[in-house]
């Protein structure tokens, strides 16, 4: 079987399994089973698949992944994260598209706190998105920055994905983590510039009167709920990231 045929069959099958709603880890297991059967020699290949899977995650280089997530959890549960958002919210004023800018800056700060991209996105999404929509922000201007910040979180350490990449590619993980800082900051600066430019040139993209004096109200019960939601999500992330490593 030529390589392009094998690649398209395996990636096609992976896409199909994802579309069916099979959990991501199992979709990867599925194509690994097919690959092992054809390329590693049928039944012996399947035994080898399990052996390789376990041996490949029995690696000290991967231990930062659960630790980074644990670190994020500690900061979210102690309430430091909420205080950080609050501080950033008070710091930024008189900027066009203020809440979008707050989302980008808060997301960048969180990137340095949490190793889990999904946890950061979920926290910002549940806290800032309803407020932006309620104040009449265009959905793309409200959701865009929150989703885009996931890309910054992947670059700025701690980052579980960077550890995974470094370990798979055999690159120095510490150097890779350090190397992510400048591109991450550049990326978020570019996001802020785009938001400010876009809203100054085309104020219709945000259809509101951005009330400067109004800061985010994060009453204690609300923040507790947000934190619990984030914690359950990041738990899921941690486990599935681990399961993905398994492949």
């Amino acid at each position, binding site marked *: 079987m030529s390589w392009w045929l094998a690649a398209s069959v395996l990636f096609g099958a992976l896409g199909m*399994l*994802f*579309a*069916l*709603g*099979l*959990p*991501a*880890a*199992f979709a990867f*297991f*599925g194509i690994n*089973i097919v690959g092992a059967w054809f390329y590693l020699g049928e*039944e012996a290949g*399947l*035994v080898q*698949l*399990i*052996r390789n899977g*376990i*041996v490949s*995650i*029995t*690696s*000290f280089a*991967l*231990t930062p992944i*659960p*630790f980074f997530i*644990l670190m994020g959890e500690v900061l979210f549960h102690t309430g430091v994260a909420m205080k950080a958002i609050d501080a950033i919210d008070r710091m930024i004023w008189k900027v066009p598209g203020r809440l979008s800018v707050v989302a980008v800056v808060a997301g960048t700060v969180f990137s340095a706190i949490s190793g889990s991209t*999904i946890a950061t996105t979920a926290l910002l999404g549940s806290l800032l998105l309803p407020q932006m929509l309620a104040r009449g922000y265009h959905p793309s201007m409200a959701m865009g920055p929150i989703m885009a910040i996931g890309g910054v979180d992947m670059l700025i350490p701690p980052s579980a994905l960077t550890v995974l990449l470094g370990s798979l590619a055999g690159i120095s993980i510490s150097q890779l983590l350090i190397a992510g800082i400048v591109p991450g900051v550049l990326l978020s600066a570019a996001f802020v510039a785009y938001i400010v430019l876009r809203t100054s040139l085309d104020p219709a993209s945000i259809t509101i009167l951005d009330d400067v004096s109004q800061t985010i109200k994060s009453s204690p019960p609300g923040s507790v709920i947000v934190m619990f939601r984030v914690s*359950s999500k990041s*738990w*899921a*992330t941690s*486990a*599935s990231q*681990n*399961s993905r*490593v*398994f492949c």
Partner: protein
Amino acid sequence: MKAYRLVLQASAWAAALLLGAIALLVTLDVVVRNLGLGTLAWVLEVSEYSLPVATLLVAPWLMHRNQHVRLDALLTSLPRGAARTLERCADVLGLAICAVFVVYGSRLVLDSARLGSMVVKTLAIPEWWQYALVPVCFSLLAIEFLRRLLARDEPARRAAGA
């Protein structure tokens, strides 16, 4: 049923405690090393072995709570009936995947135990210990896929994970 849930919860707790203990041990190792008191070589090795163990222990509990990461973009855009059919296909495939891991995982454990292979690093352990949890945890995952397949109403399927 209650006992079964207890098993899932106990394994998730075990995974959490294991990761917590490893976090403390690695920190201790860093402190000891920086104080020039030598190194605790076994800590690195125990933390390596605990990564697959924690992953395997927590997977069935996550499946029970429907918290494994999955794409539902297609499922949510389809009519209810069609989405349900697709989900059932996914459950059957998941069950088959788990069955493969249970069968070949057991074979791997038995073969390795029969040959008496050892893994010798700082610690020397029988090789089959590394793989022993694979058939056990994938059996629990298979039960979970079966449970989803047989569940009649949506709420049961979407349990706590929504």
